[in-house]
C-alpha cells in the first residue's frame, strides 16, 4: 500500500508527460525531416533543411517580427491599463465596481467571432487594419480582464500598511507605484505578462481579419504554407519556431505560474 502511494504520483507524472509531449514530439521530429525534395536534399533525409528554408523565406522571417511587435505592444498596453485599475479594485470600493468586474468577465467570455465584423469595419475607418497597433488594441478585449484579475490578486496580498507608510513619507501615487508597489508585486507582473503574451500569441481570429494585405502574423504565415502540395516539414519547423518564445516565457514564470489566481471569495 505504501509503495503504491509513493508510486502513484510518479506514474501520473509519466502518463501526463506522455500525453502532453506526444503531439509535440511528432511535430519536432517532422521538422527535421525533408518531406519534399529540395535542392541537394533528397526527400526523406533528416537534417536542418526545413529550418534553413524558414530563414530563407522572407515572408516567414517577417511574420516572426510582426507577431513579436503586436504581442509586445499588447502586453505593454494591458499592464499599463491594468495596474492602476487593479490597484483601485483592490484598495477601494466605488460606484459600479462590481458591475465593472462583471463587464470584464463578460468580455473575456465573448467569443472573438462575435465581434470580428464591427471591429474590422471600425478599425478600417481609423487606418488600424494591417497595423500591429490594431491587433494589439483588440487583444485587450480578453487580455485586460485577465491582467486585472491576476494583478488584483497580487496587490491584495500586499498589506495596506505599505501604501500608508509610503504616503506618510510623502510619496505621490505615481512614485509609490514605481518605488514600492511594482517591486512588491514583481512576480505578479511577470505572471500577468505571461498570460497576456500567451493569449495574444496564440489568437488567430482577430489576427487574421486585421491583416488583409500586410503585417501577417506568424500564425497566418503558417496557414499560407498549406497548399496543394504542402511542405509538411517546413510547416512543422515553423511551428517549432512559433513555440520558442512561449517556452521561454514558461521558464521565466515557472515558480509563480500558479500563484496569480488565489481568489477573493
Amino acid at each position, binding site marked *: 500500500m505504501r509503495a503504491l502511494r509513493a508510486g502513484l504520483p510518479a506514474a*501520473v507524472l509519466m502518463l501526463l508527460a506522455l500525453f502532453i509531449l506526444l503531439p509535440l514530439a511528432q*511535430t519536432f521530429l517532422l521538422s527535421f525531416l525533408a518531406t519534399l525534395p529540395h535542392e541537394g536534399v533528397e526527400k526523406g533525409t533528416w537534417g536542418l533543411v526545413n529550418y534553413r528554408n524558414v530563414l530563407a523565406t522572407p515572408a516567414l522571417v517577417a511574420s516572426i517580427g510582426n507577431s513579436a511587435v503586436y504581442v509586445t505592444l499588447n502586453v505593454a498596453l494591458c499592464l499599463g491599463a491594468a495596474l492602476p485599475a487593479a490597484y483601485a479594485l483592490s484598495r477601494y470600493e466605488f460606484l459600479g465596481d462590481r458591475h465593472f468586474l*462583471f463587464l470584464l468577465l463578460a468580455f473575456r*467570455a465573448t467569443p472573438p467571432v462575435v465581434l470580428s465584423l464591427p471591429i474590422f469595419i471600425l478599425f478600417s475607418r481609423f487606418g488600424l487594419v494591417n497595423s500591429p497597433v490594431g491587433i494589439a488594441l483588440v487583444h485587450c478585449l480578453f487580455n485586460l480582464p485577465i491582467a486585472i484579475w491576476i494583478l488584483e490578486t497580487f496587490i491584495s496580498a500586499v498589506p495596506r500598511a505599505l501604501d500608508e507608510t509610503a504616503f506618510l513619507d510623502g510619496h505621490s501615487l505615481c512614485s509609490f507605484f514605481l518605488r514600492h508597489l511594482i517591486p512588491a508585486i514583481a512576480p505578479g507582473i511577470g505572471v500577468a505578462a505571461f498570460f497576456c503574451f500567451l493569449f495574444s500569441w*496564440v489568437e488567430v481570429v482577430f489576427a487574421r481579419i486585421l491583416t488583409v494585405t500586410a503585417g501577417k502574423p506568424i500564425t497566418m504565415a503558417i496557414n499560407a504554407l498549406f497548399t496543394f502540395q504542402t511542405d509538411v516539414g517546413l510547416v512543422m519547423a515553423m511551428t517549432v519556431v512559433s*513555440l520558442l518564445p512561449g517556452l521561454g516565457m514558461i521558464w521565466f514564470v515557472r515558480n509563480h505560474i500558479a*500563484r496569480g489566481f*488565489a481568489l477573493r471569495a
Partner: protein
Amino acid sequence: MTTRPYRNAAWLLMLPAALLMAVVGVVPLVAVFNYSLHDIFSLRDVLWVGAEWYGEIVTSPRFHASLLRSLMFSAVVLAVQVPLGVGIALVLRRTGRWAVLGLMLVALPLVVPWNLIGPMWLGLVNAETGLVGQALGALGIGFDWKFTALHTWILLVAMDTWHWIGLVVILSYAGLSGVAPEAYRAAAIDGASRLAVFRFIEVPRLAPALGIVLLLRFVDSFMIYTEAFAINAGGPDMATHFLAIDLGEEIKAFNYGSAAARSMVYFLIVITVIWAFARLRAAGGRE
C-alpha cells in the same frame, strides 16, 4: 477581511482600462446589435428589418441542432477535464519540487497557436506517418476520424483536453495552495480518511477556483471554432457542426445582418450563463 474605503475618485485609476474596454468591447457590441436589425447588402445599401433575423434563427432546426451539439461538447469537455485537472493538481501537490516541472509541462500546449493544434493532431493520428495512427494500426484498431462521427468526437475531445488541461491544473493548483498545512496535520490527528480530507478541507478551498475553471472552460468550448474547423470542418455529416462554425459560414457568405443577429444570440446565451454564475458566487459569498 478589512473593509475597503468607499471612494469614487478611484474611477480615475480605472479610466485607462475603462476606455480600452469601451473601444474594443462596448462600441463593437453596440454596432453588432445595430447590424442585427438590418439587412445589409453593402455598407451603403442597408434595409431595416427589425427582429426578423432573430425570429428566423431561433426557430430554425439547424440552429437547434448546432446548439444541442455545442452543449453536448461542452458537457463532455467539462466532465473529462475538470475531474482530470483537479486530480492532476492533487497529485502535483504531493510531489514536492516536481510540481514546478508538472506545471511547466501542462502549460506547454497553452503556447501553441490555435490554428496549428488541428494540423498537429491530424499529423499525430495519420495512419501512415503519425505516431498514434501507426500504433493504432499495429494494434488493429481502425480509427476513422474523417467519416465516423464518434471518432471525430473522440479526436476533438482528446485534442481539447490536451490543449486546455493546463489551465484547469494551474487554477486548481492555485486554489489548493490556499490549504494551510496545519489543516492536513489536524486531519491526520483526527484520523480523517482521504475522502474526508478532500471533501471537507480541499473542496471548500477549491470551490472559487473551480467556479472560474467551469466558466472559462464552458464558454471557450461552447464557442470552439478554429480547432474544430481544422479537424473536420464540421463533418462528418454535420456531426461536429458547432455554433461558431455556423457563424463562421455566415460571415464567409457575407450575410452580415443575419451573422450579427446570430452573434447577438450567442452573446446573450454566454452572458446569461455568466450572470447566473455571478449570482451563484454572490450567494455563496454571503453564506
